[in-house]
Structures are given as structure tokens and as C-alpha cells.
């Protein structure tokens, strides 16, 4: 099987944007085509990662709209919705389209427009993924994080401050990301004194509500050099699910979808955690960075917090995590977040990450939907 190369990538400014989803998707798509030196008519498959354009702004049929707007008709189009992991799932779908030999040039564009809705409304759209039993309890994704954080801190005797240090680290990284929603540092004191959202977690333990888009161009590695000699390769990708009802999991501190998707990606790449140079983890909530860093095998279960305390995951640490600023600082436009994770790795493994650059030839992205309900893990490496 021919491996799949990424030959172009883009992401828009993340944050509160004036444009609607259509504008955001077009902006990322055209920037990506420009980055890859591709004409729209060359696109054979066009995937759009998006969770809830119908619910957020009453616009459906988005992939066809985008194909027309960028001049990519008659490309095959498909929307990919996997809640917060839609971007990762879109990456997987786009990879499949090329790896299977069906498409020789595939574009993925992920995006979401959210900030025109109130926090309560946006929270309800996201919480609508829950089981009817959970929904009537008023459970939200942040409250799952609060429940899990308290259990984790108690079970592993971890200090509350360790979660705050995830936010401090990722905000510090976001300062050097011009696309990030928040390009400012926060202190540990600010994190620990911010308003409670889901006890013991506070405002700065959570990602913001965000508008934004990102895009990737993929082709078979065997022809990548026809476009560029500066490409990256998807060395491995895996997707998995965990229980829909969160409380039915045997251990609330283990995300089974992360474990399983990671195994698949590592096996495909013929790599293990020891081969990974940089990681983009789905820090929608600070606690998630601990869980994913453990469930991907970087640290023993219950030890992820120590790595943050010891600076292992800092930009200059042994395993830099979320050099982009993560969802925490960069923002979380649902359908775009997984694409933006790959965008960061694409820059890192090609040595194009500017002030965020770390010594990296391989990188891993973990994109989580729901509260670990659906997960996509992707491994990128530099072209050989």
C-alpha cells in the first residue's frame, strides 16, 4: 500500500470571527490550495469535517457548497461528523480515500462557527451528543471533566496545581502561534483563582468557544515529489470508540478510545511512544492532557501529572506537548481542531514551526470526540 503524503496545509485565524462557516471554509481551502500549488479542478475528493453547522447556523449541505465556492466541482464530497473529533475523523477519511487508491488528490477542510451562540446554547449543542439518560441530568462535557478530574486527583494523589500548570504551559506556547485565539500567558495564580465551572475545575482549565477552519491536501507518497519535496507522511492512523454512556467505563481515568486508536496508529507506523518527538493532545480540558499522555503510553497511568510538574512536556522538554498552544490557547472550533493539530505537526516535522519549532521528525495527534467517546490518533513523520 502506498503511503499518504500531506503536500499542503493551512489554518485560519482562530477566535471570534466575523465570517460564517462558508467564509471560514473557503478561506482555509483557498489558502491550502495556494500552499500546495494545486488548482481546484485537480481535487478528486473533498471532505469537510464539521460537527454541527445545521444546529449552529442552520446551514447544511456544506461540502457541496464548498466544492462550488472554490471551483472544485465535480469532486466527490462528503461531510465527516464525529463531534469534537470530526477533524481527526476527516483526516482518517481523507487518508482512506488516498490509501485505497480511489483518489489521487484529496482535500480535507474542517471548520466550525460557534461564537454567535451564547455559552449556554453552545454547551447544549455539544451536550446533545449524550445519552438520553445523561442529557436529562443536565450533564455537560465540562461536568464530565470535573467528575474525572476529582477522581484522578484523589486516586493518584496529584495536586490540583498540576492541572493548572497544563493551562500555564499551553498558554505560554500559544503566545508564539499567530493563529491562536489567546496569544497571552496566564499565571498559575490566575488559573487557580478563576471562576469555578465544574468543581474542582475552573475557567482556565477549559478551552474557549471558537470560530475557525483548517485544511490539508493529501496524495500518494509515490507522486508527492511531483508537487513538492517538502512534504510530510501519515505514518499511522487509528480510530476507536469507547462507551457512549461515560459512567459505564470500568476505570474513569482510562480513555479506551485513546488506548485502542493509539495501538492501531503505532502498529501501522511501526513505532511506539519512544519514537515520538512531539505531541498535539486534545486539551479541551486540562485533565484530558494527563489522560491522553498516559493512554498513549508516554507515561504510566497516574504519572502524567508528574511529567507536567517536571517540565517533560514543556517546549524544551523531552516530549513537547501542544506546541501550538493546544485547544486550550489556540481555541476549539469543533470540526477544525483535529485538522489544526495535523497542521501543527506538519509544520513541526518539516522544520517550519518558527518560534514554536522543536527537534522533531515524528509527531502524534490525538483528537477526542465527546468525553473520549470517539478518538482518532494520527502519526506524522518527515519525508525521508
Amino acid at each position, binding site marked *: 500500500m502506498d503511503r499518504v503524503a500531506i503536500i499542503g496545509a493551512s489554518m485560519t485565524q482562530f477566535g471570534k470571527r466575523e465570517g460564517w462557516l462558508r467564509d471560514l471554509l473557503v478561506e482555509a481551502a483557498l489558502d491550502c490550495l495556494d500552499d500546495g500549488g494545486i488548482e481546484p479542478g485537480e481535487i478528486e475528493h473533498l471532505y469537510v469535517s464539521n460537527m454541527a453547522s445545521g*444546529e449552529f447556523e442552520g446551514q447544511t449541505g456544506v461540502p457541496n457548497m464548498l466544492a462550488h465556492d472554490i471551483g472544485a466541482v465535480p469532486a466527490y464530497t462528503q461531510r465527516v461528523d464525529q463531534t469534537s473529533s470530526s477533524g481527526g475523523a476527516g483526516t482518517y477519511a481523507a487518508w482512506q480515500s488516498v490509501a485505497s487508491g480511489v483518489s489521487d488528490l484529496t482535500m480535507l477542510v474542517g471548520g466550525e462557527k460557534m461564537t454567535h451562540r451564547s*455559552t*449556554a*446554547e453552545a*454547551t*447544549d*449543542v455539544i*451536550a*446533545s451528543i449524550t*445519552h*438520553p*439518560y*445523561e*442529557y*436529562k*441530568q*443536565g*450533564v*455537560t462535557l*465540562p*461536568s464530565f471533566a*470535573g*467528575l*474525572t*478530574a*476529582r*477522581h484522578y486527583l*484523589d486516586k493518584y494523589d496529584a495536586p490540583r496545581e498540576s492541572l493548572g500548570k497544563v493551562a500555564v504551559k499551553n498558554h505560554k506556547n500559544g503566545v508564539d502561534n499567530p493563529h491562536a485565539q489567546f496569544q497571552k500567558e496566564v499565571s498559575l495564580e490566575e488559573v487557580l483563582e478563576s*471562576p*469555578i*465551572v*465544574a*468543581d*474542582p*475545575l475552573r475557567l482556565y482549565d477549559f478551552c474557549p468557544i471558537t470560530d475557525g477552519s483548517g485544511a490539508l491536501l493529501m496524495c500518494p507518497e509515490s507522486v508527492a515529489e511531483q508537487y513538492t519535496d517538502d512534504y510530510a507522511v501519515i505514518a499511522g492512523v487509528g480510530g476507536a470508540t469507547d*462507551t457512549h*454512556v*461515560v*459512567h*459505564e467505563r470500568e476505570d*474513569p481515568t482510562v480513555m479506551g478510545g485513546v488506548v485502542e486508536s493509539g495501538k492501531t496508529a503505532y502498529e501501522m507506523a511501526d513505532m511506539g511512544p519512544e519514537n515520538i518527538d512531539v505531541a498535539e493532545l486534545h486539551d479541551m480540558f486540562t485533565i484530558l492532557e494527563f489522560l491522553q499522555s498516559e493512554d498513549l503510553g508516554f507515561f504510566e497511568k497516574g504519572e502524567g501529572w508528574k511529567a507536567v510538574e517536571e517540565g517533560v512536556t514543556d517546549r524544551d522538554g523531552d516530549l513537547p506537548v501542544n506546541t501550538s498552544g493546544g485547544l486550550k490557547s489556540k481555541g476549539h472550533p469543533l470540526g477544525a481542531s483535529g485538522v489544526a493539530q495535523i497542521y501543527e505537526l506538519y509544520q513541526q516535522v518539516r522544520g517550519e514551526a518558527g518560534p514554536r519549532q522543536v527537534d522533531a521528525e515524528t509527531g502524534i495527534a490525538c483528537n477526542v470526540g465527546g468525553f473520549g467517546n470517539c478518538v482518532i490518533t494520527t502519526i506524522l513523520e518527515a519525508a525521508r
Partner: protein
Amino acid sequence: MSMNAIKYDDGTISYPAHPRGLEGGEPVEEIDLTERVAEVVTWTTSTATPPGVRQPNHLAIVEFEVEGQPVRVLGQLTTGEVEIGDEVRPTYVEELREPGAGMREPESQDWDGYRFEPTQ
């Protein structure tokens, strides 16, 4: 309104009911949880609640022991004054969340159920 854990033909027990269990087993028995006590595994107080949900919303994951197996259930608490390990029991509430206030179609599900209150 009942709160029945489901036993599947592979011996596993869980709540709420699914057409098949996690290991693929078929449901064979309902086990009433409403007269039992459970232990708080973890809890939170959510202050940013969506439409139709009380604010603040105290929530917990509690654990029943059923036929020697742990059966976990997430639910609202009657109070935020709890600790991990506290014993709680279910207490019926006619409306856990206002139907129709959020985006879920009101007729698509029921809205009554049980909160957990400390036994001490």
C-alpha cells in the same frame, strides 16, 4: 419511573439499559436499584449549565454493588455537601430538567428520574 439495572446473559450488569450489553450479551433480567444505597465515586458542581438545567447542578458518579459487581450510575445530587466515599440513596424527582428548554425534542425521551441524597 424505575431505575433498573440490566443483567445480560453473559453475567454482566449495567445501567442504563441497552439492546445488547458491552460484551454483546442479551438482556435477561431487570434489577431495581431504587431501594439500594450506593457510594460516591466522584462528584462535581457544574456552574455553567445549559438551558433548562438547575444552576448550580450537583452531579455524581455513584457505585452500587449488585450481585457482587460494581454498577455505576451518574446522577444529580440533592446537595453539593458530599465527599468521595459517602453513602447515598436514590430519591425520585418528577422533572430533572425542563423539557423543551434545550435542543432535545421533548417527546423523544422522559425527563423524570432519581437524584442521590446522602444517607447521613
